[in-house]
C-alpha cells in the first residue's frame, strides 16, 4: 500500500496495552505471554536459535539475560526489568535483521568508540 501525503492513523494503543501488563515484571514472576516475549527475543538473536521455542511464561535467567542484552544494545538503562523505556522500544516497528549474530555476544553496542565485543552471560 503506497501513499503520497495521505493521512492515515492507526492507533498504537492496542499494541501498547498488550505489552503494558509486563511493566515492572522481574525474575521469578510468571505472567501469561512471557513465552511470546522470549520468542521475540529469540527472533532477534537474544536467545540462542538452537533452543526450542517452546518457552515457559516464567521470567527466568534466560529471559533476564536476553533483556539485559537488549537494553545494552538499545542504550537503555540496564535494569533487568521490563520498564517503560524498554517496553516502548519493543513495540516500535523495526528491521527484521537480528541484532545479535553470535551466541551470547553482541557487536552492536560499540558506543561509537573502540570496536569491542560486549559479552553477556546466559
Amino acid at each position, binding site marked *: *500500500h*503506497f*501513499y*503520497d*501525503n*495521505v*493521512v*492515515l*492513523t*492507526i*492507533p*498504537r494503543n492496542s*499494541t501498547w496495552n498488550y505489552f503494558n501488563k509486563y511493566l515492572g515484571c522481574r525474575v521469578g514472576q510468571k505472567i501469561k505471554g512471557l513465552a511470546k516475549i522470549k520468542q521475540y527475543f529469540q527472533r*532477534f538473536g537474544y536467545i540462542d536459535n538452537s533452543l526450542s521455542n517452546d518457552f515457559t511464561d516464567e521470567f527466568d535467567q534466560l529471559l533476564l539475560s536476553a533483556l539485559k542484552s537488549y537494553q*545494552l*544494545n*538499545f*542504550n537503555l538503562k540496564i535494569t533487568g526489568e521490563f520498564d517503560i523505556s524498554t517496553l516502548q*522500544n519493543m513495540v*516500535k*516497528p*523495526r*528491521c*527484521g*535483521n537480528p*541484532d545479535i*549474530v*553470535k551466541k551470547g555476544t553482541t*557487536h*552492536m*553496542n*560499540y*558506543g*561509537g568508540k573502540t*570496536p569491542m565485543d560486549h559479552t553477556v552471560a546466559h
Partner: protein
Amino acid sequence: FSFFEGQPRWPSSKSKLKYAFLPENQLTDSVKLAFRRAFDKWSKVTPLTFTEMDSYRSADIRIGFFVRDHGDGNPFDGPMKILAHAFAPPIGFFHLDGEENWMVDGEYLKEGMVDLESVAVHEIGHLLGLDHSSEKDAVMFPTLEDGTRKVELSRDDIEGVQMLYGSNPDYNGSSTVYTHHQENDISGYS
C-alpha cells in the same frame, strides 16, 4: 556502527552495483524514485555507484515487496512490527513487507504509516555490510517509529561504511553529515 560476522563487503571489482525491482510488484516511478534517493545517500559518501537495471535475476541487488512467508525463512508479519530485511554482501536480497502502509513521497507522516525512503536507507546499509548500530541517531538503529522520517546518514553510519569501502573522492566530509528525524516524545521535542 557494527559489521556482520566476518565483515563481508562487496569486492572492489564490484563498485558499480546494479539493482532491480521484482517485476511482479509493478512499482510506480515515484516508488522507484524513493529507492533512488536512498541509494544516493550511500553513493555520496563512498566510491560505490548504484544503477537500476531491468533484469531482476541478474542484478546485484534485488528489491521486492513480499507478504508473510516468502521462502527465505524470515516471514513478514503484517502491518508494523517487522518492516523489511536485507542480506549481507554479496547476497543482495532486499525484502520489504508488502502489508505496510508505505509513505512514498510526503512530509505528513502519521501513526500507522512507514516512510519508505527511511527504511530503504537502513536496508541498503545492510546490503553494503553494516549491521545494526546502538546510536539512536544512526539510520542503522534497528527501530523506526511509525510516523518518523530518518533519511540522512549520521556520522556513525558514514564512518562505518567508509571503513568498508573508503570515501567518495567528492565527499567533503560535512555536507551530508547531520541527522534529521521527526520523533515525537513526551518532552515535545521534534
